[in-house]
């Protein structure tokens, strides 16, 4: 049987994290190809419904990445909003029996290509340990 390969949906802010991911590519850094990136103007633009939809459609993990706290956000408070929403969503996912570790928020600046590659690599490793999403036949935490 082939090894489980997690599917990750990544919402990356245009100004910091997407540029960081771009830098990782330009720098020829190696990281797993499991992530599918969706560029948004700000991490604060990521509606909780987007994340729920990603899980509903079978994503094994969702990564939200934005500008560093507290003051790098180009829209002033977008990263704070994203942080609060993700914290709330993690609690909801836990209630539903989905491991909250499947949803992750990270701060990656435009100069942190190395960090972006590390975040994705670590997330893929963690998801491999967790196994497939309960919606793809994985166990979840059985709540």
């Amino acid at each position: 049987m082939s090894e489980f390969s997690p599917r990750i949906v990544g919402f990356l802010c245009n100004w910091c994290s997407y540029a960081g991911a771009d830098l990782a590519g330009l720098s020829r850094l190696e990281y797993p190809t499991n992530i599918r990136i969706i560029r948004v103007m700000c991490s604060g633009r990521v509606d909780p419904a987007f994340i729920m939809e990603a899980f509903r459609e079978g994503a094994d993990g969702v990564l939200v990445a934005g500008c560093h706290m507290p003051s790098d956000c180009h829209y002033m408070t977008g990263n704070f909003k994203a942080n609060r929403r993700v914290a709330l969503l993690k609690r909801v996912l836990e209630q539903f029996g989905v491991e909250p570790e499947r949803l992750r928020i990270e701060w990656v600046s435009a100069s942190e290509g190395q960090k972006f590659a590390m975040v994705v690599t670590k997330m893929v490793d963690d998801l491999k340990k967790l196994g497939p999403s309960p919606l793809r036949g994985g166990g979840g935490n059985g709540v």
Partner: protein
Amino acid sequence: MSEALRRKLDAATGAFKDERLRWLVGRSEEMVLSGKMSREEFEDRVNGILQTEIERWLILNELKSKGPQTIEALSKTLGLTHRRILEHMIAMRWLGRVSVVEEEGDWYLYAATGAPEASPEKETER
């Protein structure tokens, strides 16, 4: 498990559309920093509202997908108590989200109306 989880995720998606919840989450830091409520109290309130909204959306989605149902049938499908569903029905009838369409024995048959929810201004007028 996956069908039940999919139902819950749909309900949560609906719940996050709730303006009150969005406003509360958006203002959380200001409210805590202003000393109007403690972080714990704030989180309790958000959790309470979220739980309520998720349950209501579970009921609404069930009524929309399977047509009119009794509280008894909804209770069996959703695993919520009769009392809890009745509380939601009373609130949702008042908000115009569900209506009683007919009686089935001792039970009322409820249907989702699909009507827009009353705005807060309209609510205070009633």
